[in-house]
C-alpha cells in the first residue's frame, strides 16, 4: 500500500493542522475581530444616544414607554407560546390557554390603568395640543400634521413613482433619452433636501400658485421621494428573472399581460418596501417643508373630528420635525423633557415604519417563489 504522507508534522493524523493553516486561521480571527470592533463603534454610540434621548424624555413619555414595553413583551410571549403549541401536540391546550390568558391579562391591565390613571399624565404628551407658548401640553398638532403630510405625499409620489419605474424598466427602449432620464433619476436621489425645498417654493408655491400650504409641502416632499421610489421599483422589477418574461413572450403573452400576471405579483413586495422606507424619510425631513407650508404654531381643535383633520389642503400646518426645531431653539422656558420627547416621538414614528418594512422583507423572503 502506498503510504502518501500529506502531513509533515504527524504521519498518523492526515487532518492535523499545518503551520500555514494555523497562520491563516489567525489572520481570519484578526479580521473578524476588526470587523466586530467597527460594528461596535457604530452600534454602541447609537444605542447610547437612543438611551439618553429616551431617558431625558421619560418625564413626559414614561407611560407610553410602559405601555409599549409591556405591550411588546405581552405580544412576544404569547407568540412564542403559540409557536410552541404548534410543535408540541400533547401540551397544545396548555400553551394556547397560557397565551390567551396572558393576552387577556395585558389588555385588561392596559384598559385599567388607562381608565384609572388618566390624570397621572398618561398619553397627554401625544394627545394634547401645544399650550402656553409650547411650554405645556403635547405634540398632537405637529404629530397629525406630519401624518397628513406623509399620507398626502405618498398619494402623490407612489403612483407616479411606481408607474414611472415600471415604464423605465419594462417598456422604455435603451436609447440616449432613456439613459438621460435614468441618470437624472439617480442624481436627483442625491440632491440635498433644502434644494428640493427651494424648488418647491419656485414650482408649487409661486408658479403653480398653491401658496404656502399642506398641498405645496406634500408635493415638494413627493418630488423629493420620487427618485428613490422609481429606483427601488426598477430594482424590484429587475429582480424577477428575465427568463420568466421570455417564457411568457414565447407563449404569445403581450408585454403588459406578462407584467400584470407575472412580474408585478412577484415584485410588489419589493416595490412596497421601497415606498415604506420613503415614508420614514418624508416624516423626518424639515428642509423641504420649511418654506413651503410648515408653520411655527397653529391653534387647532382639541377634540372631535376637527382634531383629526385639522388642516385643509390650502392651510399651513405644523409638523414634528419643524416643531422639534422650534421647541429646541426658538422658544424659551420649554422643559427639557418636551424637546427630547418630541425627538423620541419622531424617531419612534420612523422606527415603527422601518420595522414594518423589515417585517415586510422577512415575509417577502419567506414566500420567495423561486
Amino acid at each position, binding site marked *: 500500500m502506498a503510504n502518501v504522507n500529506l502531513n509533515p508534522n504527524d504521519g498518523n493524523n492526515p487532518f492535523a493542522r499545518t503551520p500555514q493553516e494555523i497562520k491563516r486561521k489567525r489572520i481570519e480571527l484578526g479580521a473578524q475581530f476588526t470587523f466586530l470592533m467597527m460594528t461596535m463603534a457604530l452600534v454602541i454610540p447609537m444605542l447610547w444616544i437612543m438611551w439618553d434621548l429616551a431617558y431625558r424624555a421619560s418625564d413626559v413619555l414614561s407611560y407610553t414607554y410602559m405601555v409599549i414595553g409591556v405591550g411588546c413583551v405581552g405580544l412576544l410571549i404569547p407568540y412564542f407560546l403559540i409557536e410552541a403549541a404548534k410543535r408540541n401536540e400533547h401540551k397544545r391546550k396548555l400553551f394556547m390557554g397560557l397565551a390567551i390568558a396572558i393576552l387577556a391579562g395585558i389588555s385588561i391591565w392596559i384598559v385599567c390603568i388607562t381608565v384609572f390613571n388618566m390624570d397621572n399624565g398618561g398619553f397627554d404628551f401625544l394627545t394634547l395640543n401645544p399650550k402656553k407658548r409650547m411650554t405645556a401640553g403635547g405634540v398632537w398638532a405637529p404629530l397629525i400634521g406630519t401624518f397628513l403630510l406623509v399620507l398626502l405625499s405618498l398619494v402623490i409620489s407612489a403612483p407616479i413613482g411606481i408607474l414611472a419605474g415600471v415604464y423605465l424598466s419594462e417598456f422604455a427602449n435603451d436609447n440616449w433619452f432613456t439613459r438621460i432620464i435614468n441618470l437624472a433619476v439617480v442624481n436627483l436621489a442625491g440632491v440635498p433636501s433644502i434644494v428640493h425645498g427651494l424648488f418647491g417654493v419656485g414650482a408649487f408655491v409661486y408658479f403653480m400658485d398653491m401658496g404656502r400650504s399642506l398641498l405645496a409641502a406634500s408635493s415638494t416632499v413627493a418630488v423629493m421621494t420620487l427618485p428613490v421610489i422609481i429606483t427601488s421599483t426598477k430594482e424590484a422589477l429587475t429582480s424577477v428573472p428575465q427568463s*420568466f418574461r421570455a417564457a411568457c413572450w414565447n*407563449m404569445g403573452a403581450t408585454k403588459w399581460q406578462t407584467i400584470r400576471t407575472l412580474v408585478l405579483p412577484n415584485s410588489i413586495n419589493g416595490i412596497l418596501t421601497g415606498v415604506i422606507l420613503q415614508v420614514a424619510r418624508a416624516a423626518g425631513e424639515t428642509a423641504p417643508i420649511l418654506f413651503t407650508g410648515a408653520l411655527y404654531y397653529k391653534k387647532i381643535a382639541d377634540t372631535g373630528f376637527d382634531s383629526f383633520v385639522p388642516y385643509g389642503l390650502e392651510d399651513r400646518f405644523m409638523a414634528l420635525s419643524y416643531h422639534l426645531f422650534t421647541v429646541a431653539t426658538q422658544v424659551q422656558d420649554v422643559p427639557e423633557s418636551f424637546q427630547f420627547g418630541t425627538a423620541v416621538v419622531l424617531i419612534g414614528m420612523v422606527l415603527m415604519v422601518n420595522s414594518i418594512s423589515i417585517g415586510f422583507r422577512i415575509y417577502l423572503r419567506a414566500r420567495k417563489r423561486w
Partner: protein
Amino acid sequence: MNQNETTQLTGDLATDAPAAVKVHHESSLPISSDIHISFDNVSVKYGSDVALQPFDMQIKRNEIFGIIGPANAGKTTLLKSINRTLDFIPSAKVSGSVKVNGQDVSAIRGRRVHQLRRHIGMVFPLPVGLPLSVYENVAYAPRRAGMHDRRVLDELVEKCLRQAMLWDEVKDRLDMLGTKLSGGQQQRLTIARALSHQPEILCLDEFSIAIDPVTTMKIEDVLLELKQELTIVLVTNLVQQARRLADNTAFFNKSELIEFGPTEKIFSEPEQQITLDYVMGDFG
C-alpha cells in the same frame, strides 16, 4: 372548419375555445402548399456580429426537421427569428424574409405578432418553471388567449402534461409551485407549456438536456406521434437524436448553413466533407 383561422395566423382561441383542442386534425389537410416555414436569404446580426449568414431553407409541414451543429452556429437565433422574439433583443437585426404559412413574419404588425407566437411552441434548453402553480403554468397561455372555461382548461392541461410525460408525477400536486419541481420536471413543464397554446409548429432547442434518457425516449415517441398534427423543428446536440427522429436535417457551422436534406443522406453521404466529419464525430 377552422381552416381560415389557423392558416392565416388569425387563430383566436377566444372565439372558438372548445373546438380549439382539436384544431390541428382538421387544419393540416387542406393546405395547398406543403412548405410550412421557409427562409429566403435570411441573415441575422447582433450589432456588428454576424449570427447567421444569408441562407435559404424550407421546412415542410408535418415533418420533424432536425438542426445540428456545434455551439455558436446560430441555431437558437434561427428559432428566435421564426417567432419574432428577436424583437426583444434591441441589437438584433434580421434581413431577408422568414415565411410561416407563406406569410412574411417581419410584415406582421400589432397584435398579430402575439398570434404568430401562439402559433409556434418554443422550448429552450434552460428549464423555466414560472412562479405559478403547475396547473397555472400550463393554463397560462390559454388564459391569456381568452380561454376561461374551467372544464376545457382542465382537459387541456391534462393533455399537455401527458404529452410532456409529466402527468403521472404531478397529477396529485397540480397546485404546487412550478419552480419547486426538479430540473428535469421543469423542463417537461416547459414542453407542456409550449404545447398548451395549441401550436402548429413546435420548436425544441435541446429539450432533452435536463431530462433522463428513459423519459427522453418516451418524449421522442410522443414527438413522432405529434408529427401527425404539427411541424417540429428539433435543434439538438445529440446527433443520434436527430438521426432517430428527423425526416430532414440541416447542418449549421459557424453561423453558416452548410447543407440540408433528407436525414439519411446527411448521415451517410453528405455533399460537404465537414458535415460527414461532424456526424461521424471526427470534427475539428
